[in-house]
């Protein structure tokens, strides 16, 4: 199809029999299965892929490994995708991003012309005068910033998560990683070998390690077959280990799955990132790293248009040149920044092939071709001293430049674990030190670069891992690597700038230096002021140059200058995979289906769902009024299964409760309930419930729906200290409960077949009993939250439905009506009962909310006692009171403020229209001087309308408590 594709053995990754096509920027692109979007584009000789962040310069690929931001593209679903990581076969439409007009003719490219008016950090220097103007500039700047466009309509795709465990996780399946994995597995360890590429072999798949290429192929075949034969190695290909977290917890992204790997030991064999040379216009499409050219040829079989130039800072670049020549690429020249090659045979080999080599020279400036979008020629200059050039030696026409200034260890994962980068001056390279326990390095990341040494280093790492696992291992081999891979100063500042240090952020040499000149000398401040390293590649190609430049500008060593902290993740990762499938647990009481059948309007209560009332939301007021009416005059029934339940058994059960809750429980008789208030150590009311003494050594305690988990946890924590002889069990789900309330409730229970004498004498208010209702075992408590004769029946959850059905059918004769929580809130308010969490807040102590009576002053201790006493000894700052006003007044809402001489003195916590009382009634915090019944208070309601309310003694309803004692 495309004339530029080479035959095998080039193009290992593509399947020439499976052509694929997609649209890029409106044009049809053809490639093969196995191509990335970028290799397919390059196969059609299209090098313009994106526009840069700030100056909107045309950009093409740099690393071809998905390690830079030059190839960020947009798909219909998603912005900011690395085109080098996108499989061509999966795409339909791909486009460039961050331009105005078209990718080829971006009108924002004007910004490149204006560049000299936009110094580093220019946005700190302008746009705010006169005051107020920034708002308008901001809108414009925001629009030009940002890269792709989010598609606001996409729905999350299906993705899932899996846990994996292994003895040794080896990250990177190059020669070092495979060697390490083989050694560790041979010693009996379970090994996980993880590589981001869809193949194993790493650099062996494209980089020759000597003059002859056969060694590479031979070695690759051998390692792969050993890998296939090894029993306890699991290979994860196309799997990116994207971070290292404490205790070797590794998130690995593979396809649509997030694997969470917990390893015992972790071997990093992540290799190194090749570094660009910094010269004017080093970002023009057509300028790539040497390794990128090798990948393009060997992986994708794309032989780009020549002629090409290789810019060398080390011997490795010559090997690239040889690979290119072998593939048939026209090589115009090799420009070597050094005086000579380390290995003379390499220079000779090129001379033999008729390639001109310039030594002590550099490309000082690149020029675009006539289109302005692609490399046209390069200017070669003599290097005089580090970074300084002399005269122009040659201008070479070329369409492609491959460069290598050296290598930076792929340090990210190690640095997530706290490792440090130290600059080794003799090698002009950073090396990793201070690894966390259980982390080992092998190969390129360990600054070892010759093939033999890389494999040996891998085997050593495998042995060390075995020892760490207390398994036997051979002695380590001696590993040596004298290869110099880094040029000490591949940075050539140009008077007209545009020598890019950071491609992501469009930062030139002067930007870095000027940051230091402005006083941002610390490398972290340089980063923050200039934004170097903040882009998608997180400094992979800029950290080394930045450290060198700042060291020079601030008169420090490169080690002292250092690099900024590497933070997870290694590569940008999709949020959808991190989120995964969502689990939103919802708890339903056993009566849930009954409520829905009855037309309940369900609302959340913590993770539970409860009926608010029965009926349509549009008829809310009427429904609640009818339900309230039924309870007040006949009988109602409410599902209170969500109430927390805690079972306490043991000789110290009473003592335990006595220490936890504010009231006294030691002398509580069997068969009686007591109100139980819990205060925090700060003296604040945090929960309440009812404690029923079922036997001498057995209590059943309720807690609030949303509070029970905390109460239970606190109980366990306290008893871990007190070590009382009591078993504490949370039985919230084991029991369900209903409350039958209203003057006819006794009749309902009787006719439902309750085997208890329910008379007031035999079963008085606040008593509790164990009994049976129609054969169903229940714990019955006579409580009065809503202020009527009432029975709370707690039943094993399995029997809740039978009990409900039985009560409803027995109640039919008495017109029993189910009621919901909102009705219950109204009823309890009429009765003046507080709801902890609604009528109390994070500061409410018992004295403020009228719970003094529930505090036992006689006992020596309860949780929070010291604080409660101090608080209650202080003059009250506010007090919770009941208030009422006419039904015709504007109804205050919960949260409205109580105002006194212009100041805030409190707030409304509950407020309802009471049909029973024909009044608006509520609870509010008021100034203590206004707390006596009869006082007037001012409440500021909606739209700042103030209303006068009168403080009323609680309860509003049935002050003599006659009804619940029936």
């Amino acid at each position, binding site marked *: 199809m495309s004339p530029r594709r080479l035959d095998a053995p080039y193009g290992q990754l593509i399947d020439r029999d499976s052509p694929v096509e997609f649209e890029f920027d409106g044009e049809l692109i053809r490639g093969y299965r196995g191509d990335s979007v970028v290799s397919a584009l390059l196969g059609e000789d299209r090098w313009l892929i994106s526009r840069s962040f700030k100056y909107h310069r045309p950009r093409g690929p740099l690393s071809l490994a998905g390690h830079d931001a030059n190839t960020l593209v947009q798909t219909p679903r998603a912005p900011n995708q690395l085109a080098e990581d996108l499989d061509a076969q999966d795409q339909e439409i791909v486009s460039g991003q961050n331009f105005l007009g078209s990718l080829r003719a971006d009108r924002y490219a004007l910004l490149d012309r204006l560049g000299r008016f936009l110094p580093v950090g220019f946005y700190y220097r302008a746009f705010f005068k006169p005051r107020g103007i920034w708002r308008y500039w901001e809108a414009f700047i925001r629009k030009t910033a940002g890269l792709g466009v989010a598609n606001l309509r996409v729905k999350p795709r299906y993705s899932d998560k899996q846990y994996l465990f292994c003895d040794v996780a080896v990250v990177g399946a190059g020669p070092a990683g495979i060697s390490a994995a083989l050694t560790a597995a041979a010693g009996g360890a379970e090994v996980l070998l993880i590589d981001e590429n869809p193949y194993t072999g790493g650099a062996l798949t494209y980089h020759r390690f000597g003059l002859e290429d056969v060694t590479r192929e031979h070695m690759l075949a051998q390692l792969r077959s050993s890998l296939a034969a090894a029993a306890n190695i699991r290979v994860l290909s196309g799997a990116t280990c994207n971070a290292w977290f404490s205790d070797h917890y590794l998130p690995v992204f593979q396809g649509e799955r997030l694997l969470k790997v917990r390893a015992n030991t972790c071997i990093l064999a992540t290799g190194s990132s090749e570094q660009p040379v910094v010269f004017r216009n080093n970002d023009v499409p057509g300028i790539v790293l040497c390794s990128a050219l090798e990948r393009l040829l060997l992986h994708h079989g794309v032989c780009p248009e020549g002629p090409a130039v290789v810019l060398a800072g080390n011997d490795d670049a010559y090997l690239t040149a040889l690979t290119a020549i072998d593939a048939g690429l026209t090589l115009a020249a090799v420009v070597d920044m050094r005086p000579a090659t380390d290995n003379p045979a390499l220079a000779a080999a090129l001379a033999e092939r008729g390639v001109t080599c310039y030594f002590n020279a550099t490309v000082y400036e690149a020029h675009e071709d006539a289109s302005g979008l692609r490399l046209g020629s390069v200017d070669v200059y003599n290097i005089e001293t580090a970074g300084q050039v002399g005269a122009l030696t040659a201008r070479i026409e070329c369409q492609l430049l491959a460069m290598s200034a050296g290598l930076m260890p792929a340090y990210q994962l190690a640095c997530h674990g706290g490792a440090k980068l130290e600059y080794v001056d003799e090698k002009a390279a950073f090396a990793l030190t201070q690894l966390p326990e259980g982390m080992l390095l092998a190969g390129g990341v360990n600054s070892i670069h010759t093939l033999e040494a890389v494999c040996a280093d891998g085997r050593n790492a495998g042995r060390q891992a075995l020892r760490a696992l207390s398994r036997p291992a051979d002695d380590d081999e001696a590993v040596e690597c004298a290869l110099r891979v880094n040029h000490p100063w591949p940075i050539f500042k140009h008077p007209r700038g545009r020598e890019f240090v950071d491609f992501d952020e469009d930062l030139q040499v002067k930007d870095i230096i000027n940051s230091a000149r402005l*006083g941002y000398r610390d490398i972290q401040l340089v980063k923050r002021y200039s934004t170097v390293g903040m882009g998608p590649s997180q400094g992979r190609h800029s950290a080394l140059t930045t450290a060198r430049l700042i060291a020079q500008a601030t008169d420090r060593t490169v080690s002292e200058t250092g690099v900024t902290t590497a933070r997870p*993740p290694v590569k940008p990762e999709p*949020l*959808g995979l991190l989120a995964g499938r969502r689990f*939103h647990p919802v708890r339903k009481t056993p009566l849930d289906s009954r409520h829905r059948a009855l037309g309940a309007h369900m609302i959340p209560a913590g993770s539970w769902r409860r009926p608010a009332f029965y009926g349509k939301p549009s008829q809310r007021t009427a429904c609640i009024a009818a339900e309230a009416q039924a309870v007040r005059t006949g009988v109602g029934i409410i599902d209170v299964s969500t109430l927390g339940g805690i079972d306490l058994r043991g000789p110290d059960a009473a003592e335990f409760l006595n220490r936890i809750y504010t009231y006294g429980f030691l002398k509580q008789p069997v068969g009686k309930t007591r109100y139980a208030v819990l205060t925090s150590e700060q003296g604040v009311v945090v929960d309440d419930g009812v404690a029923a003494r079922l036997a001498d050594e057995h209590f059943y305690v309720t807690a609030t729906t949303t509070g029970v988990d905390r109460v239970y946890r606190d109980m366990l924590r306290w008893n871990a200290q007190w070590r009382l002889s009591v078993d504490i069990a949370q039985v919230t789900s084991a029991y369900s409960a209903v409350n039958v309330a209203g003057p006819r409730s006794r009749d309902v229970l009787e006719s439902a077949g309750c085997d208890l004498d329910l008379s007031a004498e035999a079963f008085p208010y606040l008593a509790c009993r164990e009994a049976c209702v129609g054969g169903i075992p229940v714990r019955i408590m006579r409580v009065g939250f809503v202020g009527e004769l009432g029975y709370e029946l707690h039943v094993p959850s399995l029997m809740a439905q039978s009990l409900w059905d039985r009560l409803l059918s027995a109640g039919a004769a008495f017109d029993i009506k189910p009621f919901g929580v909102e009705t219950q809130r109204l009823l309890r308010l009429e009765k003046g009962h507080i709801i902890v969490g609604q009528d109390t807040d994070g500061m409410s102590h018992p004295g403020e909310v009228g719970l003094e009576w529930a505090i036992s002053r006689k006992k020596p201790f309860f949780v929070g006692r010291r604080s409660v006493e101090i608080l209650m000894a202080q003059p009250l700052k506010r007090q919770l009171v009941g208030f009422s006003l006419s039904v015709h007044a504007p109804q205050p809402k919960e949260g409205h403020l109580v105002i006194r001489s212009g100041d805030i003195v409190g707030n409304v916590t509950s407020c309802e229209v009471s049909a029973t009382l024909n009044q608006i009634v509520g609870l509010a915090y008021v100034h203590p001087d206004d707390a006596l019944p009869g006082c007037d208070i001012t409440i500021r309601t909606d739209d700042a309308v103030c209303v006068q309310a009168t403080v009323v003694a609680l309860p509003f309803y049935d002050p003599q408590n006659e009804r619940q004692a029936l």
Partner: protein
Amino acid sequence: MPLGLLKYGRGDDYPYERQPDLPGPTELKDHYDVVIIGGGGHGVATAYYLAKHHGITNVAVLEKAYLGGGNTARNTAVIRSNYLTPEGVRFYSASVKLFEGLANEFDFNIMYSQRGQLTLAHTDATVRAFRQRAEVNRHFGGRTELIDRKSIAELVPCLNLDPAELPVLAGLWHKDGATARHDAVAWGYARGATQRGVELHQLTEVTGINQAAGRVTGVTTNRGTVGCHTVIQAVAGHSAILARKAGFELPLVAYPLQAMVTLPVKPFLNPLVSSSALHCYVQQTGRGEIVIGGGSDPYPLYSSRASLPLKESLIASAVDMFPFLSEMRLLRQWAGITDMTTDYSPIMGVSPLENYYLDAGWGTWGFKATPICGQTMAQLVASGGQVPELIQPFALERFDRFQQVNEMGATAASH
């Protein structure tokens, strides 16, 4: 193109005649009138106002690492005043007011951006609390209101109003809510302070507080000892550790707090949006990145490591709120150490030592207070220990007096 930028076109290099923003390193003097420990936003703001408002310039700010590198560098820059207590609302409102004029005062753009902050309520308990906050805010002149689902949908059309089985019931819309370039705030203050003669010493760690007869006489650092008349500690996450060196305890517990950011996209989200029930907030920076944050880690720790479980849960919540975020890419994740009080209010003012002042307990919410802290701490020092009224409620002794200023409900999910 603003005219102010034209001068940069004169030469290819930066115009050198300008003073640098921050002076280079110098030797420590033997004695200063005031030593400020901690070169975060609070430390340099205090120095700035000491110099600017009170003419006190013999001041050294000692920073163990680099300027603004602590929580000032890590925070997500939510600026708001929609707190719950009158004390809190008055204090933070004063800070918001100062923020509004800061760029012009500094002649340095802090990119203050008043976008409004929207907090979502998913339960009626939260609706009640929000109504109260709106009322208290309005009482003090703030622009805050309770809005319904329809208004929320108009404000943020891309928001999912029914996330995670937790339908949004209402929202607290705080028009004064804002954000700013956090680093620039520290730099602007440091620049203004050093231009007035204050010394900023980076890589200078205070290792001891020297005392005689109940008074502080100076501090010991990794670069030697300096004497001083007054000391202020403003070290956020390390407050309890430093106080212990000074010989007293602070009721603080340190928890890691994490945040994360995506690759930048074109603007689509204007307000800062947070959800009380999902413990998550989402906002878009001027660069176009989406910042995602939430509550602190659930256990105390003095480490600023990031973790996977928190990342998973925070992002799951963010995707619940904005489902399309699932196709966006996460760029970076980080953490800071926050010094939490039990009532979610700071500790400011005097300490058990006579000439040693406290600015601590800033937890997850202190960035927004940077200007007002600087101003009130400077007043405190300049007046020789008269505590300004605005910060009296935040005194350390409130914990003994049981007079806490409870902002828990107004702070937990949205800093």
